[in-house]
């Protein structure tokens, strides 16, 4: 199993706002959340790759993450072209 290799990320979760809909436990591709009774619990915060799926699918905005593609090529191309937000589709558009 290959996991995120960096020591920090921007994932933040406020369990007070959780409605217990389980969406974050369903959409996370790295099992960062787990349902614990009525609410979700952040069990593997370090594995977060900041894809943003949990934040987008959280109906009560309990999760925030500065999401985006973890792609050096996209970031460097964006920097060279002077674009702000790098996106996928690195071949000819």
């Amino acid at each position: 199993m290959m996991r995120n290799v960096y020591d920090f990320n921007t994932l933040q979760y406020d369990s007070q706002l959780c409605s217990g809909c389980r969406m974050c436990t369903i959409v996370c591709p790295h099992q960062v959340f787990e349902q614990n009774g009525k609410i979700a619990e952040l069990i593997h915060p370090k594995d977060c790759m900041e894809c943003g799926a949990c934040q987008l699918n959280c109906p009560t905005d309990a999760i925030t993450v500065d999401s985006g593609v973890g792609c050096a090529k996209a970031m460097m191309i964006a920097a060279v072209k002077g674009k702000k937000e790098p996106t996928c589709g690195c071949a000819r558009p």
Partner: protein
Amino acid sequence: MNAQNNSSQAHIRPTTSKITFKNRWDHFLARWAFNRMGHRVEPGLYSLGHPAADSHVFVSGNYTLSFDALRANLTRLDCYILVLNTKGINVWCAAGGGHFSTDELVNRIETTHLPEVVKRHVLILPQLSASGVAAHDVKKQTGFRVEYGPVRAKDLPEYLKARKATKEMRTVSFALYDRLILTGVEIAHAVIPLVVLGVIMFFISGLLAAAATVAAIFAGVVLFPLLLPWLPTPNFSTKGFLLGGIVVLPFVLLRCLGAADAEFWWRAGSILAYLLVFPSMTAFIALNFTGSTTFTSRSGVKSEIFTYFPVMAWMFCSGIVITIALALARFFIDS
């Protein structure tokens, strides 16, 4: 076709779960980055088998590899497939890039007249589309309930039995085969830089340096993805430096042996130049591989670029300067 009887307006294209030789050829070309953005299917509503008003509706992107992976795993099933316009990009990247989005899904539900075609307003989406689609917003705007299926289409038959995905089905993997199959695109993208750098190195240093260029780039595009989990350092750049350093060692040795009667400063300079230029090439390719993996975060990659890209640039440039200086020194001493 009975599907079309449900609605006079809905235009439904028939498809099958059969993968033909033509499909396989298309997949092969896509894997080698040939016409990279041209592997598309027409967005819209498709029928597989003989679906009725209570059949499942699966949603996919219009990249042939995505659409074909889905339909190939829906054998002996009567269902609908709603294909979004993801510009020929796969589900996960399209979701991250804003093409596989809530807006596109809502819009495609409307333009295909899906509410008139099916009675049960439930859509099964691939789990990895969740970074582009807000399920509760789709419900609010269209009344359709979004259900996230497993990560991989091959788990769909198992998923459909209980409409539940196991932890394993919900987790992305990056196994040896997953990494191997990506090397085609990596190789294809490396051809032009390889030729350019190889020719430059040949003219400023000779055949051995050109061969080392090929080896360093090959290490980055093929060996690095394959060996990724076993390279012992924490991040991509240092893994790349390490791998590039190992790969260049035989060339360093050959360089010394080939110039056994050369002055000490020339041999030392050559070794230094090799150790600066080639590992930085491999490390740069390794850093660029972050986007192909299934687990790197944006903030992490950003910090890695800021930390290691300047190191790579300095190593590469100073190595090239030393190489040119040595070539000039040799030229003037010999003549």
